[in-house]
């Protein structure tokens, strides 16, 4: 029996979909059988980030309404054998799925898969309630901005009220330089307010924009810093102990050479 994990944030644009795509992919790279479910009906994105948009025939709404078998709606990833996507519907209304249907869907999926990773829409209304309905665990994504942290706090309260009592936090798009100069909230500032367990920190990096636009998750790139951060997060979700990554900016080749000569 697998685990159902919802990735949520409240605020839009903090990286829910990017996190879902990368963490889901990284879990699959660990050899787990994964399905990612896009519950953002009407604004589907997860398929685009994964580069699977052109393979969609049936979607989540078709699957829960019985227009197709669940298996038919699952899209197999083009790179990994054990990674699947259940895409959201694009032309249907958000209210076309009920929380009961979502719970039933999740319980079916977790029989098949080791992890069911649910990409939640922004907001706290119907779509959010659907997304968390069948989830046992939650990952809350925030960025070091006051508004995002405020919304994360609200979401954690709502998750607790819904019985998901120990959500874990991912702080996305950290910029170490700005934290150092005091222009950006640091990890400690955020944890001070939210008081939840930290699952990981992801540095802000241009590589994300490139990988998102290409439809290729950044976890495939061994040299990508956010890619490493997401792979670490996947390992922690899988139950491994992995230390937090060092956020120090990578030094240039030249300065490393200089440091080497100095130490000799």
């Amino acid at each position, binding site marked *: 029996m697998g685990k159902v994990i919802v990735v949520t944030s409240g605020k839009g644009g903090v990286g829910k979909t990017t996190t879902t795509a990368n963490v889901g992919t990284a879990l699959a790279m660990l050899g787990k059988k994964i399905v990612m479910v896009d519950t953002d009906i009407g604004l589907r994105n997860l398929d685009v980030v994964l580069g699977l948009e052109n393979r969609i025939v049936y979607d989540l709404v078709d699957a829960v309404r019985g227009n197709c078998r669940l298996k038919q709606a699952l899209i197999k990833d083009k790179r990994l054998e054990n990674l699947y996507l259940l895409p959201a519907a694009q032309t249907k209304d958000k209210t076309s799925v009920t929380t009961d249907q979502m719970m039933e869907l999740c319980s079916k999926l977790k029989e098949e898969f080791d992890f069911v990773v649910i990409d939640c829409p922004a907001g706290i209304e119907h779509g959010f309630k659907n997304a968390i309905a069948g989830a046992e665990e939650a990952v809350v994504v925030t960025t070091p901005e006051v508004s995002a942290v*405020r*919304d994360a*706090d*609200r979401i*954690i*309260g709502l998750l607790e009220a819904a019985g998901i009592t120990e959500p874990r936090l991912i702080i996305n798009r950290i910029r170490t330089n700005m934290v150092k100069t005091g222009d950006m909230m640091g990890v400690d500032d955020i944890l*001070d*307010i939210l*008081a939840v367990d930290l699952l990981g920190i992801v540095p802000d990096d241009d590589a994300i924009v490139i990988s998102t636009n290409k439809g290729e998750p950044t976890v495939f790139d061994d040299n990508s810093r956010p890619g490493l951060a997401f792979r670490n997060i996947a390992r922690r979700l899988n139950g491994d102990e992995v230390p937090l990554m060092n956020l120090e900016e990578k030094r240039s080749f030249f300065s490393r050479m200089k440091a080497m000569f100095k130490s000799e």
Partner: protein
Amino acid sequence: MVNKWSAALANKPTVLYEKSLRSGQNINFDGNVVILGDVNPGAEIVAGGHILVMGSLRGLVHAGALGDEDATVTALHFAPTQLRIASHITRPPDGNVDEGAKPPEYARIQNDTVVIEEYQPPR
């Protein structure tokens, strides 16, 4: 400075909330309210009597909401978004960022203005 507690308020019923209050959560009670945790930005407490926060107060609180000017607000870390006592409304001065560690403070009405000072146990 010795703070004084009104006997009338002390005899009112009191609720004890044993968790932090997060954004969007609120407590409305016509007696006193004690929070064993933080009150985060976006959270709201409206109480007829005193409010006591055994943690960081960063949200909005209204003590003496039924008009009782003897009501007070006490917090281990005092940094509310907005502070109301009876019909008085105050907020921290603009540009005043939360400065971190400091002793517990409490707020009350004195000479028709809200005064915030370091907390001293009543004698």
